[in-house]
């Protein structure tokens, strides 16, 4: 055993403390909080957001997509993911392997975040690695075999996410050579998941019955709850991406909230103009659209710019999801329309609105530019476009190959009958809701009390016979009387309707009520069609034939 190896086995506490820079407790506290917030976006945020949008037979499988993703990617990230994404010895294309198993990161500081423990940076980035494949799950919902999903996202995280993360943040070509900006994951998280989602939707094909039968969300309150958790968790995502408790974090925080709000407003306005009513799902979707759009720009733009960015996000994503049905592919939960489109929009908006007056680090990150188009540098917008296209191409192609590989091992699409039964039962042998959904009667003291308040059905049964009206005329006039054309039915009809039960030919049957009054009212009603109409009471109700 060499000397070095022996040292490595000593308690690292003693050796490392001496030469490691002190941490900033404020930064560390904020980053611990942010890490937890970002994890909260996936579980339960995204799990609920997606879970509510699917049909009730698939809600558990959809929740499982997010929950399982959190478990699997957590392990993958520690094992190899982080090293591929941030290993400093890497090339332009992929990180080095020196951090496999998080070797040597105890008591270390990452160059990009020198004021917090390196392990905290690992954990924070890990939550981004978790949410990205979980976002894709919206496009493959309701029809993917669970084992295939597990294999696919595991591979995707290592082969697509980690290298892409390296390109943008780990020192690879997009961040390290091109000088494009991505504050919190517009390309790495949203465009990546959006383009992978498009490929998944195309590869898997449409759900059984898609386009011919309605597939409305089964529980919108779950979806809204999930969207709200995403909104709150996004403060960790964006403000946490400042990697410290500082001015940039606060700008990102304010921008995040403002863009989410602007996204809601824009979506609702466009929706109201197009279909007449603002929907709750529209509000939730608009918030996510605004948040996606601001993500790459959050710590680079002034707060005023977050309003147009959020609004453009809401409007563009609304247009995209509305247009989806004409394209024919089945992106079940609109990952492409919201994360893909919103992510592209945000990446380009960063190239327009970024300014070094908000974040001086922009000058270093872009190799000398003090902002985007508003500072007179159209070249940044051009670089953003290159980053967008490269991300789409890499993720799209890579996802396609991974799906073919996955399909060779486990068939990705479930059997037809399993899809019709629902994935909850066919993939997990579970049912989300086992309550009787309707027609159930609760026998309780409350129900008994209500009964007593109601009028019992009492009173004599009698028949009023209408004479002097042609039979066809009688039928059509009565039907006419009973139709509410929007101007309200006649007050005469209202008078006797409470006692009226049935009519057979010219014999009107009543139960209860004042006989003479009903007789004369009925007569008045039929005088409208025939002057000679007469009504007489027949106390014996007619025997049924």
């Amino acid at each position, binding site marked *: 055993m060499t000397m070095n190896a022996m040292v490595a086995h000593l308690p690292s506490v003693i050796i490392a403390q001496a030469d490691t820079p002190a941490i900033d407790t404020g930064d560390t506290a904020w980053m611990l909080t942010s890490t937890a917030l970002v994890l909260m976006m996936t579980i339960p945020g995204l799990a609920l957001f997606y879970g509510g949008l699917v049909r009730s037979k698939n809600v558990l499988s959809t929740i499982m997509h997010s929950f399982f993703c959190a478990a699997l990617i957590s392990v993958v990230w520690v094992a190899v993911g982080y090293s591929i994404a941030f290993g400093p010895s890497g090339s332009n294309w992929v990180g080095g392997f020196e951090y496999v198993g998080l070797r040597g990161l105890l008591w270390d500081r990452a160059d990009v975040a020198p004021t917090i423990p390196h392990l905290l940076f690992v954990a924070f980035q890990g939550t981004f690695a978790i949410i990205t494949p979980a976002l894709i799950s919206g496009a493959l919902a309701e029809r993917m075999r669970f084992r295939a999903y597990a294999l696919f996202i595991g591979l995707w995280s290592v082969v697509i996410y980690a290298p892409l993360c390296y390109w943008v943040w780990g020192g690879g070509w997009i961040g390290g050579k091109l000088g494009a900006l991505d504050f919190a994951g517009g390309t790495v998280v949203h465009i990546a998941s959006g383009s992978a989602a498009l490929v998944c939707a195309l590869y898997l094909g449409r759900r059984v019955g898609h386009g011919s039968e*309605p597939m*409305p*969300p089964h529980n919108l309150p779950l979806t809204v709850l999930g969207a709200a958790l995403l909104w709150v968790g996004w403060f960790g995502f964006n403000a946490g991406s400042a990697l410290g408790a500082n001015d940039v974090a606060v700008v990102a925080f304010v921008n995040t909230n403002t863009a989410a709000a602007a996204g809601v407003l824009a979506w609702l306005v466009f*929706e109201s103009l*197009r*279909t007449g*009513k603002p*929907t709750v*799902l*529209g509000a939730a*979707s608009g918030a996510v659209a605004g948040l996606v759009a601001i993500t790459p720009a959050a710590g680079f733009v002034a707060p005023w710019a977050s309003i147009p960015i959020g609004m453009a996000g809401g409007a563009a994503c*609304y247009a995209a*999801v*509305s247009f989806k*049905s004409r394209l024919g592919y089945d992106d079940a939960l*609109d990952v492409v329309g919201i994360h893909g489109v919103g992510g592209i929009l945000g990446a380009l908006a960063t190239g327009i609105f970024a300014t070094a007056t908000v974040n001086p680090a922009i000058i270093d990150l872009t190799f000398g530019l003090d902002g985007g188009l508003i500072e007179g540098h159209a070249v940044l917008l051009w670089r953003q476009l290159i980053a967008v296209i490269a991300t789409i191409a890499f993720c799209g192609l890579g996802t396609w190959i991974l799906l073919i590989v996955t399909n060779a091992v486990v068939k990705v699409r479930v059997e037809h009958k399993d899809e019709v039964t629902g994935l909850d039962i066919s993939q997990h042998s579970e049912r989300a809701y086992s309550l009787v*959904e*309707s*027609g159930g*009667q609760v026998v309780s003291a409350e129900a008994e009390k*209500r*009964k007593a308040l*109601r009028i*019992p*059905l009492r009173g004599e*049964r009698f028949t009023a016979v209408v004479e002097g009206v042609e039979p066809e005329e009688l039928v059509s006039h009565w039907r006419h009387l*009973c139709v*509410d054309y929007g101007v309200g*039915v006649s007050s005469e*009809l*209202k008078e006797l*309707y409470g006692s009226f*039960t*049935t009519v057979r030919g010219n014999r009107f*049957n009543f*139960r209860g009520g004042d006989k003479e009054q009903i007789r004369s009212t009925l007569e008045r009603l039929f005088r409208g069609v025939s002057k000679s109409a007469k009504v007489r009471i027949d106390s014996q*109700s007619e025997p*049924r034939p």
Partner: protein
Amino acid sequence: MKLITAIIRPEQLDDVQHFLDDQGFDVMTVSDVRGWGRQRGLLEVYRGQEVEERLVTKLKLEIAVNDDRVEAAIDAIVRGARTGETGRVGDGKIFVQPLEECIRIRTGETGVIAVAS
């Protein structure tokens, strides 16, 4: 003996049951059904896509009654199932069919005594 089948609005079950109970009918079968008639389905909008629920959710009541009780059962159902001041499209329908035989499984009783209402 007659078999009365009524298709009603689900939300009217409580009222129909109340009136039936009031008239002494305390045995019935209720099932969830869907169908369409004059009533238009609900128009729902999700992310800009309009979905018309063509089938309307209804409840089906089935009650076996003796001949002299048919009128009372019909009175109770129409009273409970009507909505609004003078009824609305979609309040439902009642079908009356002759019932050939009725057997109470436990006791083996048949006919009028087995119907019990």
